[in-house]
């Protein structure tokens, strides 16, 4: 373990950027975007520097730590503000700052007409800082700060245009659902402290082997809950679609490339817990499997390009979670898919942004069509991302996704078969809906509104797209060459025994490609050969209707949580007013009332007063009579 003094700059730079931009206000409007981009870029620079340092050290010496200060220390609860940069986090650092910087650059142009561009960059910087804290924190509590920090940044960015009530609602929804996940993280930390006595990664890793499986399972499940919230996994996935309300660069950065993969990071980071808690691990796999299908199915029905991509993100993260749930053998592949996905999905989102930029912010794909000619660069970069996500060799997705499918098949027994089938099915559906997106957007006839004047985006926008496209093409190959990533990460994970191979890699690849082909063909038949209606047809199957409504997730939440919650709230408000305060007022009324009644004793007649005295005396006599 090495210590360093420079880790903090990774976070401090973007944080400084955010602070300056927020405090300076309108004064910084002119140069705010440049400062923000610079801060992000310099953070990326620090990351690269750290990587170079790390590469120069042996496996054991690669993790770097930095203790900043004693944060919270009460009794045995001691948490330092400390950072940890190891082989795992460096991947994330580079992804975040790298993709982040690209998206900063993209945004300079994309947001150039927005009155509040400076504020947007402040939020972006804030997000970068928080996300870096998330992946750099050396304890669950530090992670938690970043975890909620990205939630806040996400909230601010989704609601960037919160003057539209729907957007404001979307941001609130995202925050609240994330909080439910955060609660899981809180629980995990509490259980960890109560059972293990520490909340640092290092400490827990050290004690994990002599901690009961029950405790670890509990921690694991709670971490999973956290992951489902942040990574939009089932059952806390509903916010992601609405989160597309934010400016498109936000969707690219936060809701595709970085924040939403925090769950994967968390599970991977907590490998020492999940490895010792098979039940929790199984749940992770199940969640991943459900979500990848769930997302994919939603993706088939969305006409909003960003929502389609968001559904795809959900699905792809399902893959990653599933991969991470497969244990040591899957962690590296999950991370690999995460990285490749970061490239191609970010690229596609930026592409979508570019399309919208050219189409007066229209998001409905049914009103696109034939954009290939007008936006060639966008088409190419988007297309490369498309090929990558489909898993067409040799694009990035082919390496990462196929590895996960393969690992799923090989995880053994019925579980393996089910998971394999699910992942394959997912790949097929992915092919279908992504093809649909391609066809609807770029080919066919134009179905634009009258005032649309599609045009290619400026260089500041297409350059980042191009760079990401390069990543989409090459990252898979580079990372998997000689198991580079697997070996890089290996020292962090418990080594695993060899699994029997159910299916040979080549068979899996074949099956996967076959599924993809089927998906593409079906989509092609459905959307390319037929006229596409500019307005979504209503006479569709029940299934489509359900898929359009995100598989009823909102209706479900509404019926099960929101309505009863609202009822409970109003019932409690009434209870407070009438029962509790009513009781208080009742006591006051009782006093007043009895006062008024007792007043009656004072009738004004002297004889009744005398009678009162006589009665009093009689009672005294009676008392004596009883006593004696």
């Amino acid at each position, binding site marked *: 373990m090495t210590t360093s003094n420079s880790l903090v700059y990774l976070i401090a730079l973007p944080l400084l950027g955010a602070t300056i931009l927020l405090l300076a206000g309108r004064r910084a409007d002119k140069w705010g975007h440049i400062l923000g981009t610079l801060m992000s870029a310099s953070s990326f620079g620090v990351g690269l520097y750290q990587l170079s340092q790390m590469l120069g050290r042996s496996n054991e010496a690669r993790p770097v730590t930095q203790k900043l200060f004693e944060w919270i*220390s*009460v009794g045995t609860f001691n948490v330092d503000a400390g950072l940890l940069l190891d082989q795992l986090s460096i991947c994330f650092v580079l992804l975040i700052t790298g993709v982040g910087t690209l998206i900063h650059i993209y945004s300079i142009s994309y947001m150039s007409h927005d009155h509040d561009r400076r504020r947007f960059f402040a939020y972006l910087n804030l997000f970068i800082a928080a996300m870096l804290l998330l992946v750099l924190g050396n304890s669950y509590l530090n992670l938690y700060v970043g975890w909620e920090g990205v939630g806040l940044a996400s909230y601010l960015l989704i609601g960037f245009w919160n003057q539209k009530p729907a957007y404001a609602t979307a941001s*609130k929804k995202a925050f609240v659902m994330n*909080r439910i996940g955060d609660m899981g993280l809180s629980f995990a930390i*509490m259980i960890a402290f*109560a059972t293990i*006595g520490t909340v640092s990664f290092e400490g827990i890793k050290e004690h994990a082997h002599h901690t009961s499986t*029950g405790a670890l399972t509990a921690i694991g499940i709670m971490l999973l809950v956290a992951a489902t919230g942040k990574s939009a996994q089932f059952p806390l996935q509903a916010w992601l679609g609405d989160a597309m309300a934010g400016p498109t660069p936000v969707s690219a950065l936060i809701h595709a490339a970085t924040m939403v993969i925090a769950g994967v990071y968390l599970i991977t980071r907590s490998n020492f817990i999940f490895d010792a808690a098979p039940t929790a691990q199984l749940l992770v796999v199940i969640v991943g499997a459900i979500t990848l299908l769930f997302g994919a199915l939603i993706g088939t029905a969305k006409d909003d390009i960003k929502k389609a991509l968001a559904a795809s993100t959900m699905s792809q993260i399902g893959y990653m979670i599933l991969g991470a749930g497969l244990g040591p053998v899957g962690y590296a592949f999950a991370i690999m898919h995460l990285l490749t996905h970061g490239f191609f999905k970010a690229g596609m989102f930026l592409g979508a942004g570019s399309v919208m930029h050219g189409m007066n912010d229209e998001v409905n794909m049914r009103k696109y069509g034939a954009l290939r000619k007008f936006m060639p660069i966008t088409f190419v970069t988007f297309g490369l991302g498309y090929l990558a996500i489909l898993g067409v060799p040799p694009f990035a997705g082919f390496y990462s996704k196929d590895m996960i499918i393969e690992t799923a098949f090989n995880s053994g027994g019925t579980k393996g078969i089910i998971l394999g089938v699910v992942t394959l099915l997912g790949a097929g559906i992915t092919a279908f809906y992504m093809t649909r997106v391609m066809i609807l957007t770029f080919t066919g006839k134009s179905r634009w509104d009258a005032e649309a004047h599609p045009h290619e985006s400026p260089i500041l926008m297409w350059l980042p797209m191009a760079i990401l496209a390069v990543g989409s093409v090459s990252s898979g190959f580079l990372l998997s060459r000689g198991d580079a990533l697997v070996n890089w990460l290996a020292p962090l994970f418990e080594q695993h025994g060899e699994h029997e191979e159910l299916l040979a890699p080549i068979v899996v690849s074949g099956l996967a490609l076959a599924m993809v082909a089927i998906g593409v063909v079906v989509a092609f038949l459905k959307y390319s050969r037929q006229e596409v209606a500019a307005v979504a047809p209503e006479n569709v199957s029940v299934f489509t209707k359900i898929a359009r409504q995100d598989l009823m997730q909102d209706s479900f939440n509404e019926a099960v949580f929101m309505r009863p919650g609202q009822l409970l*709230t109003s019932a409690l408000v009434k209870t407070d007013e009438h029962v509790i305060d009513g009781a208080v007022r009742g006591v006051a009324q009782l006093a007043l009332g009895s006062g008024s009644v007792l007043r009656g004793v004072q009738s004004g007649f002297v004889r009744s007063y005398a009678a009162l005295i006589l009665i009093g005396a009689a009672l005294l006599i009676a008392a004596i009579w009883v006593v004696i």
Partner: protein
Amino acid sequence: MLNSLTLLMALPIIGSIVVALLPKTKETLAKQVALITTLIVAGATIAMAVNFQRDNVDLQFVEKYSWIPTFGINFAVGIDGLALVLILMSTVLAPIVVLAGWNEAHGGRWSVKVFYILILVLETMMIGVFAATDVFLFYVIFEAMLIPVYFLIGGYGTGQRSAAAVKFLIYSLFGGLLMLASIIGLYVMSGAQGGHTFDLQALSQLEMSSTTQNFLFLGFFIAFAIKAPLWPLHTWLPDAADSATPGTSVLLLGVLDKVGTFGMIRYCLTLFPDASKTFTPMILVLSVISIVYGAFLAIGQRDLKRLIAFTSISHFGFITMGIFAMTSQGQSGATLYMFNHGFSTAALFLVGGWMISRRGSSTIADFGGLQRVTPVMAWSFFLAGMSSLALPGMSSFVSEFLVLVGTFTRYPVHAVIATFGIVLAALYILIPVQKALHGPTTAGNENLSDLNLREKIAIAPVIAIIIALGFYPSPLLKVINPASAHVIAQMGFTDPAPTNGDK
């Protein structure tokens, strides 16, 4: 160097006399005198805090003068970490309140002068109530404090101010009288066991039967639970907060209500350790109910001030839970929470108050799109809200998490239910944020003015403290920890060791 608590208490009184001597028409001068006085007091308190020996669990700055020897009553003051933190909070909040509510006194029943006299007198009592080490002195101040607050609410508030003031006063008096009964019990018992005294130290050594202890404990506890306020004794608070001026609300919820939770630690736990243990299960349940109930009620409010009041009920639930969890994390967390809550509530009330006074309505639905119109005010409100929902990086996160962790190690179920409160917190903050700050700028809000310099100066330190302590709470924790550990040790508790899942 000024190191006398008595002098510290005298300062605001001197200020109030100066204000009283000013002619009625010199309103600005009265304000300035009040501001300067509170600033001096704050400075003096900080100076004392610097001289405070952190690792010394004994009372410091002890002073003792005979007051009513017949009853063994002394004017005895002294502070430990707990008291220091709360005094610090009070005296730092005071100038902020004065500055923030510069125009609050206008439109009151009486002159501006009277407002500041009341505020300054109240500040003296706020210091005294935390510093008192004589139970009788504590009680006297505890009760006497009600009067200035009563007049502040009833005289300068809005809406149903006199009804709210009366409700507040009657509620508090009721609790206070129960406490008086208990204090009498203690006094009599001390007489039977070696001479009448009200010295806290001496009283904590009393031998009592468990029944007696339980009854006396209840006397104290109910008084504090009303003050704190704990469900179901909370109904005075929303009304009071609704009617009081923002500054008064800050002092009421931020400082006065802390007397309740402070009293639970200082008096309930110290004087009646066994009874405290007996009642812990009940109190924890009430705390958890407060947390969840307060949050739900906050969600259901249409009025901004009432909403903030209910959030406080939820927060006080956390504090009480931390206190009775009997772990060092819970205890320290609760104390830190008291401090942090003071500032986050201050921020909410002050900014909320500015919003309300500009808009002329406290109904949340009347606001809309303020972020576009008054960005600084909106941001301040947002940050205050974030602090209230205990966002990590804000001071209240540290304390809330400590309370939860501390509770979890001993009472996991309670902690788990309480944790649901954080989701509800997100709702009760974000709903008003959305309605008031986001969305299109609705009619009536277009021409609201943003915070002026004075207001910015007032709110800046609050937010700075909130954020600074979120990242670096150590200075406070180092003061609090020894005191908390002392309480826990006195109670005969040790923190539960890690169970390793009983493996």
